[in-house]
């Protein structure tokens, strides 16, 4: 048995060109598979991170009715109790209060539907990163009266600059339409152009006066945990304490982020399927040639008394050896390139306008969980192994007399 494996090992060095072709296709298959995987993973991570860091946070609390039709009067129930519960909940890092109001913004260029988010700048900064995404102006530090921070896309559309004035039309608590003027203090740019086009940040205190909410009532509490993984745990703990308000994790608030992940994994499965199929065909083809080229030798081995099982094992091992040499090399290349682009990013500015409207951003940082390295390698080795069975089976069909005669 050991000798047979040794022969298989030596056999793969007989036709160096063919062995190289097989190994290179395994390396390329593994590499391209893992790299595309890392790109899509990175893309998705970035999308989720982007959404979480700009607005979503890890957990949000609302009045359940507010979620249905965003009525101004549906504010958080028992706010003080809820805030106290949050403070006393394990793993909570920071939280912030928000007011939310949909309405219209208008100037000479036209009117557009927007969402006005009233925030407490000091605590908001601890929860989201909009303040670090400013491309112009400041984040609620300068202006005394009704400052607003808007997205770049909206600013461009309405030709707004710093200190430009905008008029927003909102509904107040009595159901009447009311107008208010704001002045642009800062312009931000995130990876998500739709968000940049429809979101206006203002001070919570300013907004509450306009819509007529008193007593510090709020619509939304956004919470970040010490780590994203704690979201579920924190949400569950809060649900046990606060049964009146609706408590949701980021994935419950924005299920489309999860759908995207599912869609991507379907795409990835198809992609990997194609790569592995190509790989399998390559291996079968090359190794079949290796068998047919050695007809006489294999016939001689059968003639002198080598069992079919041994011949089968020998040929299978030839493929396995090639795979075992190539797979680590492919893994190494994948690891190096994925790590490199994780740091430096892949610049897709040429296609970026499309990507940014999906909330992705122009530069993709590759990312691949360690377990995917294992799974894909395992799959590759498995496919190589299965592919090796066909040429080996072909060898068994040889008739020694015929094989020797074919001089």
């Amino acid at each position, binding site marked *: 048995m050991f000798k047979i494996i040794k022969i298989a090992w*030596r056999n793969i060095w007989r036709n160096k060109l063919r062995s190289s072709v097989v190994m290179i296709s395994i390396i390329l298959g593994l590499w391209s598979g893992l790299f595309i995987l890392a790109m899509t993973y990175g893309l998705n991570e970035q999308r989720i991170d982007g959404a979480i860091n700009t607005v979503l946070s890890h957990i949000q609390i609302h009045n359940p009715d507010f979620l249905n039709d965003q009525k101004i009067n549906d504010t958080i129930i028992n706010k003080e109790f809820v805030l106290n519960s949050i403070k006393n909940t394990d793993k909570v890092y920071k939280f912030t209060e928000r007011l939310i109001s949909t309405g219209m913004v208008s100037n000479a260029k036209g009117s557009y539907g927007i969402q006005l988010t009233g925030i407490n700048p000091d605590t908001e900064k601890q929860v989201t990163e909009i303040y670090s995404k400013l491309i112009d102006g400041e984040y609620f530090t300068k202006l005394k009266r009704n400052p607003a921070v808007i997205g770049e896309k909206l600013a461009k559309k309405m030709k707004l600059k710093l200190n430009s004035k905008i008029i927003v039309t909102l509904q107040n608590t009595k159901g009447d339409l009311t107008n208010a003027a704001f002045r642009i203090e800062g312009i931000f740019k995130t990876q998500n152009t739709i968000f940049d086009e429809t979101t206006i940040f203002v001070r919570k205190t300013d907004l509450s006066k306009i819509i007529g909410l008193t007593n510090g009532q709020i619509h939304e509490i956004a919470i970040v945990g010490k780590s994203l993984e704690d979201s579920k745990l924190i949400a569950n703990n809060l649900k046990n304490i606060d049964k009146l308000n609706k408590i949701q994790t980021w994935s419950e608030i924005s299920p489309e982020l999860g759908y995207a992940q599912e869609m991507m994994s379907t795409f990835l499965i198809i992609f990997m399927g194609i790569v592995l199929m190509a790989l399998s065909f390559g291996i079968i083809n090359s190794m079949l040639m290796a068998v047919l080229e050695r007809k006489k*030798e294999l016939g001689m*081995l059968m*003639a*002198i*008394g080598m*069992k*079919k099982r041994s011949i089968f094992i020998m040929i299978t091992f030839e493929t396995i050896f090639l795979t075992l040499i190539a797979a680590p090399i492919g893994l190494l290349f994948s690891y190096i390139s994925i790590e490199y682009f994780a740091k430096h990013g892949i610049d897709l500015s040429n296609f970026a306008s499309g990507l940014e409207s999906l909330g992705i951003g122009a530069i993709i940082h590759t990312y691949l969980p360690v377990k995917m390295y294992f799974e894909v390698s395992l799959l590759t080795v498995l496919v190589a192994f299965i592919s090796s069975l066909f040429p080996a089976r072909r060898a068994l069909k040889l008739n020694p007399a015929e094989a*020797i005669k074919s*001089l």
Partner: protein
Amino acid sequence: MNNIVIKTNNLSKIYHQGEIEVNALNNVSCEFQKGEFTAIVGPSGSGKTTFLNIIGGLDSPTSGYVQIADVNISKLKSSKLIDFRLHNIGFIFQAYNLIPVLTAKENVEFIMLLQGTDKEYRNKRTHDLLEEVGLGELVNRRPTQLSGGQQQRVAVARALASKPRFILADEPTANLDSKSTTQLLDIMAKLNEEEGTTFIFSTHDQRVIDRAKRIIVLEDGKIVEDKK
């Protein structure tokens, strides 16, 4: 008393080449005794290779049977037959006798590995056999580093290694020059004389025919002459 190693009974082999039937062997019955040194001769296409392949269990007859040491090998299943060949028959082919990635020593050893003999025995026998065929110096060379004649001598050593009942050789000297042919025949004859090894070989070469103790002449798949 029973010195018969091989007995063939009404062996026929019909090949189909498209529409045409080729009678490669036609009712061949004969016996081979232990210790014989037999040449199978005849014109090209007379059925020599077919005959040797069927005796050696590499091919099966269309009708008739081959009996070796009370076993009707024409009835054995493929896996049993492989095992039977391993323990009972030695083969020397015209070419492609050796495993290219193994050295001379490893090639000889290989067949004993297949038989499952122990290491000490293997080493000694490999050494002795390679000495006997005059390759004691070249044991670590691979086939590509040996001449055609040297390769055939390794093949003889390999064929003997399994202690077969007889050795079949289909035109073993066809690719050799006259000097190597003589060397190989000397070795085969010596093994036959001194150790009683039974050889059956086919050939076209008159010098080889001259060394044979028994000559079977085939023509159109029939034995037309059998002289001892």
